[in-house]
């Protein structure tokens, strides 16, 4: 621990800052607690609307229906937020420094564990995607599993071949958002408002959106783990 010569006024300044922010935070906490305890028990109106419209939404799990059909606009914007974070991370990385390569080899346990877990994780992610229609699951959970697989593979030192890191990588990054936008805009062909899924096709459309969203989310989160640019020049 570095010991610097701290003057007395700096110590008093820091103490005053600590006490003042503690008082401020305690006031905020008390205010929030009072407002939460005075909240009335909510009426179940929105819940009833969701459960009555659930058969028309194409899936039978309410959270998936809310995520991808009733409030699908939020999910669309969320995938755009993921892409924005990726763009920001890539803009900040200096162009000539690669993301830090670890020079040492990964070790037996990580190596064999990754080899063992890769097909299992792919299988479980596919199951979660399918099961999202009627049980807890869905695109985000499956995408997160794929991202963890990507992180594990990166930690063993395996790198993508350079031919694949150009246009193909970026294609999978944006395919989730693009497919979502296309499906949402397809409502215009039936002269329906933007982002309305026809009830007879809704199940298949949601599965389509979820598949590409899973790939996109998984790859984007795994690429964010690099905290730099991917290996693009030989």
């Amino acid at each position, binding site marked *: *621990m*570095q010991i*610097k010569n*701290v003057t007395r006024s*700096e110590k008093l300044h*820091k103490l005053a*800052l*600590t006490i003042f*922010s*503690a008082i*401020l*935070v*305690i006031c*905020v*906490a008390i205010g*929030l*607690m009072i407002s*939460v*305890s005075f*909240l009335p*028990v*909510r*009426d*179940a109106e*929105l*819940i009833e609307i*969701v459960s009555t419209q659930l058969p028309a939404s194409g899936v039978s799990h*309410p*959270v998936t*229906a*809310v*995520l991808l059909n*009733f*409030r699908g606009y*939020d*999910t669309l914007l*969320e995938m755009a*937020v*993921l892409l*924005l*974070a990726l763009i*920001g*991370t890539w803009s*900040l*990385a*200096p162009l000539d*420094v690669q993301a830090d390569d670890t020079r040492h080899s990964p070790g037996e346990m990580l190596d064999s564990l990754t080899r063992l877990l890769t097909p299992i994780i792919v299988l479980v992610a596919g199951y979660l995607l399918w099961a999202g229609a009627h049980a807890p699951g869905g695109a*985000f959970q499956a995408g997160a599993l794929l991202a963890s697989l990507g992180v594990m593979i990166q930690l063993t030192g395996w790198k993508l071949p350079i031919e694949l890191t150009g246009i193909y990588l970026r294609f999978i990054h944006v395919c989730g958002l693009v497919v979502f936008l296309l499906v949402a805009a397809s409502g215009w062909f039936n002269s329906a408002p933007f982002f309305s899924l026809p009830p007879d096709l809704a199940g298949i459309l949601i599965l389509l959106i979820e598949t590409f969203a899973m790939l996109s*989310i998984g790859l984007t*989160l795994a690429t*964010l*783990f690099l*905290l*730099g640019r991917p290996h693009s020049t030989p």
Partner: protein
Amino acid sequence: MTIAILYASTGIGLFSLGLYALIVLTHLLRKLLAINVMSCGVFLVLAGLAAHTPNAIVDPIPHAMVITGIVVAIAATALGLSILLRIHALTGRVHLPGVDEQFDD
């Protein structure tokens, strides 16, 4: 106190704890940790209030909001970490300028 209000209060407590740590701590990585704890507190309040319904039926709409929030939080954390690494590469320090360190790094 029902379970829902208990967890909502825990969420408020976590939010305040994270807010205090965000103001007081000077290491930038710890500030990112504090922001993450604050967002976890907000998610607890959302999901706790979702359970605060008659007949113990769970409201699915705040659940969807929390899932969206978790993904947005990790995107923001990743962006913040890359900003942090860039600051460290350019200036060599990870503390706020002009403040001496409080804890070990």
